[in-house]
């Protein structure tokens, strides 16, 4: 893979502020009342916004800080069992787009009940190859095959377990 001296694709990322911790409400602490799954919950999932970019060891920023994933682009419908996550690569030729998308998808697969249909795609108009990347991410068999590749799986796991 690219080394520590390899080109920084985006040496000048704009850095956005981190949102704070989600405060716990009284309702959430009540044993009886159910909480439905909402956008914030998916967004707060460590896999969605805390994936560290492995291309940039000098600037270990999270996807949230780079504005690759924003809460507003996460849409959940608990009753209909659907989740859609739109992510925005930092520059239009970002070669990490597929890996990022795959990591988000894997984390959602691991974190959500089986009943959910998952849709992970690139924010329209933000990437040169978005059509191709989206197609790959939407193809279940392709994703499953990718995860059979132990090397790729290891890279994905590294992305997901990387915490600052």
């Amino acid at each position, binding site marked *: 893979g690219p080394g520590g*001296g390899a080109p920084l694709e985006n040496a000048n990322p704009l850095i956005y502020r981190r949102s704070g911790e989600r405060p716990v409400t009284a309702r959430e602490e009540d044993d009886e009342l159910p909480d439905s799954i909402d956008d914030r919950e998916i967004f707060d999932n460590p896999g969605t916004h805390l994936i560290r970019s492995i291309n940039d060891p000098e600037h270990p920023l999270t996807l949230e800080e780079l504005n690759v994933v924003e809460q507003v682009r996460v849409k959940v419908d608990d009753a209909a069992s659907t989740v859609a996550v739109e992510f925005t690569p930092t520059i239009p030729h970002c070669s990490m787009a597929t890996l990022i998308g795959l990591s988000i998808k894997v984390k959602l697969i691991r974190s959500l009940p089986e*009943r959910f249909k998952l849709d992970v795609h690139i924010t329209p108009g933000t990437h040169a190859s978005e059509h191709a990347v989206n197609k790959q991410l939407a193809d279940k068999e392709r994703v499953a095959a990718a995860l059979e590749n132990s090397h790729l799986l290891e890279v994905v796991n590294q992305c997901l377990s990387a915490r600052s």
Partner: protein
Amino acid sequence: QFLLPLLIEKMDSDLQSAKLDSLQTLTACCAIYGQKELQEFLPSLWSSLRREVFQTASEKVEAECLAALYALSACLSRSVLSSDTEDLLDSFLSSILQDCRHHLCEPDMKLVWPSAKLLQAAAGASLRAYHRVSHSVLPLLLEQYTKHSQSSQRRTILEMLLGFLELQQKWGHVEEDESTLLSLRAPVCSVVFSALTDPSVQLQLVGIRALTVLGSLQGFLSPSDLELVVDHLLRLTLHEEDSQSSKAAMEAAGSLAPIYPKVFSGRMVPRLEEELQADFSSSEREEESSQDHSSLRQRCLQALAAVSTHTSIVRETVPVLLQHLRKVQKGSEAGSTQDLVSVCQSLHRVALQCQQDVEGCWYYHQTVVPCLLAVAVQAAMQESTQPLLGRALLEEEVLAAMVPVISAATTHLSPELAAQSVSHVVPLFLDGEVSFLPQNSFPCSFQPFEDGECLEAQRRLVALLMAFVCSLPRNVAIPQQERLLRELLALSCSCNCPFTATTAAKCFAGLVNKHPAGKGAGQDAMGPCQGTGRGMAQPVPFVSPGQQLDEILQLAVDRMEPGLVEGPRRTQALTLLLWVTKALVLRYHPLSSHLTDKLLGLLSDAELGPAAADGFSLLMAESPDVLHKGCHADVRIMFRQRFFTDNVPKLVQGFYGAGPDVKANYLKGLSHVLNHLPKPVLVTELPTLLSLLLEALSCSDRVVQLSTLSCLQPLLLEAPQIMSLHVDTLVTKFLNLTSSPTMAVRIAALRCAHALTSLPVTVLLPYKARVIRALAKPLDDKKRLVRKEAVAARGEW
């Protein structure tokens, strides 16, 4: 001549371990070889090192390369030059510069970092190398900074520049004739100041770091530069929106202040004082919210504390802080509790910063302690005569914030000075002697130990007495100690206010812990004892005629026992029991086992059981204000282990014999003791206790389940090898409990499932599929907090 080619070849190897070995060997060689041996191979060595650093993905390899380069440079620097031989160091450095320099100028900045690191490694080896490299690189970097306008690029450049500045720091001062840096003073300062005014927070932070380094170089900054520095730091501290920058600026001021005390006390402190006062009095400014005001005030207070790193500055800032305290207390508006707490926090920080300097410490103590006491006494008297005015100061929160201030001001006093102080403070509380307080004309008398409804406010101030008297160095005699102990004991038993009663109990315990041993109760066990906070060894206690301790302890027991059995003050009696037991357990006093047995007995009490169980945490944990080593308490080595050995068998026995409603208490007590045990001890004792804990997991009582789970979770992290032996039971029971009807239990069980992942992989693999499958269900739990834990656990698995 055989080794070096071999090393070069190995560096080209694909195997990372071969690379690392050869690099480390090279570094070792450089310590021994001289330039004669290395001369022939320098070009190849450099070429390999450069390639590795430019291309590597491994941090380890990069680090070893840089270390090797450093060693090479150092070795060559040691060479003695004669007029006709080549200056090898110079030519070596020239080739490095040739290969690296131009990368620093690339517009897309592809290889800046590797180049910079290589240059810094070579330059750091000796003053000669540093001069050679910096002469070439510094002007270049400065030029690059001006050329690139984007904040992130400037940040990178400044960080590289900072790396070189830090190398200069190694050699301390800047010599006129040789220094490139000095000749570049104007552009360097201009670059750094520009970074401080940039909107990007990250760039500001690097600028602040650079400022700190420049400030530490003797002779670098001119007086006018310094003024600018202070102005910038003030601006960032007070008006920069981002709190990271503000804090960094404050800390920078703190590190620079001792080097330039006059500038900071002359220029920064008055401005901070001005802001603090102006802000406070014009609170009628309509447009600005009180939020902004409050945060500006906070920053002023924090900055005043941060900059108090030199005695002369302390003498300026302490009066300002005290003045503000008095003002807030008089003002008594809403929110003043927070203000008072903030001032106390700042005072605390200053106290800590004064501790090492004898003069400063005494100045602080003499100035602050009487003032705090005076303000508190005043407030308490107002409360008695005119309730509702000046309430804020008497709030628990504020008194609790004052405690660390007084404590920190007292712990480092010499015994002589402490004795002086004690001769004023104790009579204040016992006899109402207010003459030593500033502004001491009070409307009525100060009698905190007397009974009477209207004296309740005065009684709360025993917290301040505690802070002082329990922090004294060990060999300071306390006047009227007997009487003081009796009064404290009475107060802790009879007072209606829980805060006051508890504080009195703590104060009593703190004194009892340090009291010289008594004859009747026998000698304390001759365990080794901890030194005082100053590291002086205590003499082994010999039998002294201190019957006082025995008597007072007996008195305490006599008052406690009926209080524990029944009546309205059982909880209070328990509090007293806990603190006295702790005081005695710490010093290995024989009475401690009698008292501990009492506590054990209370575990089966319907009303007090849970509190008694939690009391074990109080006994074992480090208390922040009394009975810890920092305040010179008598804390014997390994008291926790001893407590464990003496009492855990009784806890286990109690658990097995207890009725179902109180079993949880025994478990809770046990888990508290275990949680505070040093790891090596825990690991040896765990096997015997584990079966009890596993059995407890099957108990149907939810409280027991919860206690056991919270006990097991840290054990999984601390002692994975032992827990591995029971992995089957643990997996089954944890997964079971993830379906408990109680949310808290489900959460605790999931956390334990998560903690299981610290076990060795070989142990976990057989269970992986089953656990992942089973954890799918809680992902759809109706409660969000449960789902959150499930996601974390399943993700780890």
